[in-house]
């Protein structure tokens, strides 16, 4: 455990001299890549954890001017549609229901301006948990109550919540259910790329999602859309190395899927987690913030586990709801805006009084820019 932790998070991954040499290489590569493209190079970090890591390490100020990093649709809270947030709030209003959730969901506002935090102040029973298994334990300990876990996220969280549901089923728990507002990363990339206005020259792909799904599902990005891909870890030097690998692909004109995070990611991913996802979930329509419902881009409970679907159990209807007025979260997720482009950023919208989810989530682009000043 200790050795593994050091391998993943050794001080070497934050080493100043190694970082300086990576930046100096990046400066040369970016100039060459920009010359190749005839414009500034735009890469997208798909994952919110990358967005945060870039801001927290202060590396944006070190980037060459020919490179711009855009934030993508990889923040679980941010991509959840306004309509789905409203459904979560509706669940919290049901008498007797205990909502178990990760902390990030607490302050995301629904279309009426309320959030789970304000629901708690009005008397709703909202419990912060660190693992969905804690929610299963809560249900076992409170048989007279209904416990609903708020499942949102990507291929990283889906297997964890899947395993909680499997455990609840084995234990015969009738009072546990979950939402399954899961999104899939490869279809999200296809959504971005199918937009002719997109200017993305390369993807820094999410390390944790790829540890589950492997590198195969991204092949279409390089082959069909000719866009470079590098699966990347989360330490500062991982990110610098990932960017340099993308720049080299741009210069060579030979896009492919590379794996910088090979200490965690195997080409085939995690077969046990994939099997669990296939058992508990099936591919479905998902409703994306600012985009709306898109076929085959998410997961819902499979027939065998449909009884655990909180939305079906409590018959919660979906209604399209508008984005908060003036909020650019939707454009941000598509790589079409950066936080300072938003008129609300830092004024009407701050982390403690957030308008949009990108300012609420600890992985949101606006929260990263606000908190770290870039």
């Amino acid at each position, binding site marked *: 455990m200790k050795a593994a*932790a050091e391998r993943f998070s050794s001080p070497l991954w934050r080493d*100043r001299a190694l970082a300086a040499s990576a*930046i100096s290489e990046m400066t040369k590569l970016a100039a060459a890549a920009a010359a190749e493209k005839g414009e500034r190079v735009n890469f997208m970090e798909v994952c919110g954890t990358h967005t945060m890591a870039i801001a927290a390490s202060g590396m944006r100020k070190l980037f060459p001017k020919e490179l711009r990093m855009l934030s993508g649709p990889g923040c679980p809270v941010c991509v959840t549609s306004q309509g789905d947030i409203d459904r979560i709030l509706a669940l919290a209003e049901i008498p007797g229901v205990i909502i178990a959730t990760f902390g990030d969901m607490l302050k995301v506002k629904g279309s009426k301006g309320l959030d789970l935090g304000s629901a708690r*102040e009005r008397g709703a029973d909202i419990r912060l948990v660190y693992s969905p298994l804690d929610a299963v334990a809560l249900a076992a300990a409170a048989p007279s109550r209904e416990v609903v876990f708020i499942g949102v*996220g990507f291929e990283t969280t889906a297997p964890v919540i899947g395993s909680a549901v499997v455990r609840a089923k084995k234990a015969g728990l009738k009072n546990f259910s979950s939402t399954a507002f899961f999104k899939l990363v490869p279809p999200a990339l296809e959504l971005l790329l199918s937009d002719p206005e997109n200017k993305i020259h390369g993807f820094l792909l999410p390390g944790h999602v790829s540890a589950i799904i492997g590198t195969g599902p991204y092949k279409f990005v390089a082959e069909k859309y000719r866009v470079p891909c590098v699966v990347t870890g989360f330490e500062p030097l991982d990110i610098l190395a990932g960017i340099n690998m993308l720049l080299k692909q741009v210069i060579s004109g030979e896009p492919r899927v590379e794996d910088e995070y090979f200490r965690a990611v195997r080409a085939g991913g995690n077969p046990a987690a994939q099997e669990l996802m296939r058992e508990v979930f099936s591919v479905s329509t998902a409703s994306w913030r600012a985009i709306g419902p898109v076929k085959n881009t998410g997961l819902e409970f499979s027939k065998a586990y449909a009884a655990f679907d909180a939305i079906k159990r409590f018959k919660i209807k979906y209604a399209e709801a508008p984005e908060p007025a003036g909020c650019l979260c939707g454009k941000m997720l598509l790589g079409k805006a950066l936080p300072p482009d938003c008129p609300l950023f830092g004024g009407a919208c*701050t982390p*403690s009084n957030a308008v949009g989810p990108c300012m609420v989530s600890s992985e949101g682009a606006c929260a990263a820019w606000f*908190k770290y*000043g870039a």
Partner: protein
Amino acid sequence: MAALSKVALAHGSGGRLSRELVESVFLKSFSNPSLLPLEDSAEVRIPGATLAFTTDSYVVTPVEFPGGDIGRVAVCGTVNDLAVKGARPLALSAGFILEEGFSGDLLARITASMRRAADEAGVSIVTGDTKVVEKGKADGIFINTSGIGLIPRGRRLASSSVKPGDIIIVSGNLADHGVAVMNARNRLGLGGAIKSDAAPLNGLIEAALKIPGARAMRDITRGGLATVLNEVSGACGLTAEADEEAVPVSAATRNACALLGLDPLYVANEGKIVIFAAPGAAAKILKALRSHRYGRDAAIAGRMLKENKPQVRLNTAIGGSRIMLMLEGEQLPRIC
């Protein structure tokens, strides 16, 4: 500042919202020259002497955790709030709010632990109070402690006295307390390697004050080093600059924070202080700290700049830089 409509949990986090609550409600009602500096304890002048006076309430779940318990924290927190003003603790009070049904054995363990911490600090708990509330009206046990101390003549420690060029010294590894409690509360399975640092620091502080040159000291509790640096920067009007690599954090705690998505600079401590020292005195103060059992991992973590702009900058490990704000709301573990 807008009037407060409702108290939210984040108003108790020790960060920016706590500050807003204090300013918009408590200062509005209570404002006076002793309270106004909003330091860890207030100075109260009486003929011939200056006293330090402080109070703090303690609510921790679970009440016992690796390295400490609510009683130890209640004594150490108040002793430390006095000591960072340069005061020698004279006497403490302890008020208990107990929930009907609370275990007598556990209460006895907590009070024994308070006695041990008070003995270590060389102070007595000279007065107290007990209230019992119906089951469900409190979470087991809440403790309030107050303390008075004597500030020796000639000593003046105040955040507003900090000068450009002053050196920022941290007394040891940060974030152990917050991570230990979070691990115990949520059974995160990080093992018992990370222990709360709860400790009375009046001995350590006396050792540091033997060397002239300390201009201010702060107890680094809720909100972590980042929040305290922001408060001091606000009080003296200067930019504070910290070096990420130089801020002491143990490898175990750093890894635990990385796993949970927490920033150790915002995590609570119960046995760490930050000292703002004149440049010429910093090395000697550091040496004095390091020769004390509670200061072995002390380190120089940064400096105050000339810029008259109250903000905190962090030079990152890889050579970048960014700002560091006060804690916003509660620190919450991430989703993935």
